[in-house]
């Protein structure tokens, strides 16, 4: 494991768990870096920032738009997240760091970052390869291309690191249904949840006596729901009502989870799969049961919208020459049916 994403329901102790995991990895002798999305990255000192300034600045001027001050870019929505992603990619690539923990905050924030890192490389690509590039009249296009190349490398690296990352979701017992749906939507970005931490569990709910209370049974049922849906470990941390959480105690309780995460292999490849059924094909994308899904197609691109989150992906080669004949949610997965397009796929019977 190299990159560990930690996110969860706001206010459930996401940052406490992230800090506890970091402490746990350090106690295990691993060199650990922590990145927190809630803390603004030192953007002025980031090479990614100067690359972004160069790229946007040259582009604006090249297209005849008014020039800008570098400070104007600081407030650009998403730039801080891109730079944080670049810092994370740098840390993952650092051979002296064993584990990088990215505290992404609430699930809403995490999904926003993931969508951003998935979309921006495509948009940057269009900037250079689209019609706008032909209109460029920059006196030194080499400067633009060099900055653009480094900018894209950083963003693509961050995106690819996330796709290979291990993800831990945090919430309270009552948040289990939300965690189940968020774990499904995270798959949209090939981000697979490896463990769930239920935080602030009342001590009585942790007891294993035969006389379980109603809420204790409920807690057990919800944990079973997670196991059934995803088959991932569920760790419970006790509720603490005084002086806030202590990182050292949290780390001790998370030690078994650290060991488990440490031994997990990197996620490899996308979560979706294609299978052949006679002359047709089936495209399966695991999400979650009850997902609100829309599917669009434009040429070789597929647009998946799950609970408002978007992912645009290039169809695998064999499906580019097919038409979508139908599909929908089947259990927890989106299943699309494809048939060869007679216009581009010669029938073997002829």
């Amino acid at each position, binding site marked *: 494991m190299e990159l560990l994403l930690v996110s969860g329901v706001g206010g459930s102790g996401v940052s406490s768990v992230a800090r506890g995991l970091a402490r746990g990895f350090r106690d295990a002798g691993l060199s650990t870096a922590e990145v927190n999305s809630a803390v603004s990255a030192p953007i002025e000192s980031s090479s990614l920032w100067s690359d972004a300034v160069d790229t946007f600045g040259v582009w604006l001027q090249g297209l005849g738009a008014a020039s800008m001050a570098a400070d104007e870019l600081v407030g650009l929505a998403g730039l801080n997240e891109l730079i944080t992603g670049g810092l994370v990619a740098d840390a993952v690539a650092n051979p002296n760091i064993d584990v990088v923990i990215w505290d992404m905050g609430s699930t809403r924030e995490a999904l926003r970052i993931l969508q951003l890192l998935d979309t921006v490389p495509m948009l940057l690509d269009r900037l250079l390869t689209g019609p706008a590039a032909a209109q460029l009249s920059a006196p030194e296009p080499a400067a633009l291309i060099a900055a653009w190349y480094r900018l894209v490398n950083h963003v693509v690296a961050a995106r690819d690191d996330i796709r290979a990352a291990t993800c831990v979701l945090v919430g309270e017992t009552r948040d289990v249904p939300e965690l189940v749906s968020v774990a499904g939507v995270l798959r949209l970005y090939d981000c697979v949840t490896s463990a769930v931490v239920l935080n602030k569990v009342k001590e009585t709910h942790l007891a294993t006596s035969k006389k379980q209370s109603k809420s204790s049974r409920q807690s057990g049922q919800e944990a079973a729901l997670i196991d059934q849906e995803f088959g991932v470990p569920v760790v419970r941390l006790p509720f603490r009502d005084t002086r806030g959480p202590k990182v050292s105690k949290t780390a001790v309780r998370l030690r078994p989870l650290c060991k488990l995460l440490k031994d997990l292999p990197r996620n490899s490849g996308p979560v979706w799969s294609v299978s052949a059924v006679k002359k047709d094909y089936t495209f399966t994308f695991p999400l979650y049961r009850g997902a609100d899904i829309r599917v669009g197609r434009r040429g070789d691109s597929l647009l998946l919208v799950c609970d408002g989150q978007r992912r645009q992906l290039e169809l695998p080669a064999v499906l580019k020459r097919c038409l979508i004949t139908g599909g929908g949610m089947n259990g927890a997965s989106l299943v*699309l049916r494809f048939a060869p397009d007679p216009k581009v796929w010669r029938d073997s019977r002829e």
Partner: protein
Amino acid sequence: MSEKPPWWFSGEDSAGKGFDLGGLASGAQQMIEWARDSLLTNHQSHTDPAEHQQCVLCRAMQLFQQSTPEPIPADEVVFEWIDLDPPTDR
């Protein structure tokens, strides 16, 4: 702050805001010179990026070809939404 700012920069004085204009201008100038000398001159004769792995611009082109969808034809600007079946549980 003694260096000449980049040609596209508006020239607002951002001193005291943590932004090092001099450093940026110097870096940009070096980058321009390096890119002009080592990249553009050679890249101009490269017609197929796959045949020039040593060229950073050709590699950049290939990076995107591998990681993003093909450019969209101009007549396909709108996504066609697919009618999905009602959810099933088979």
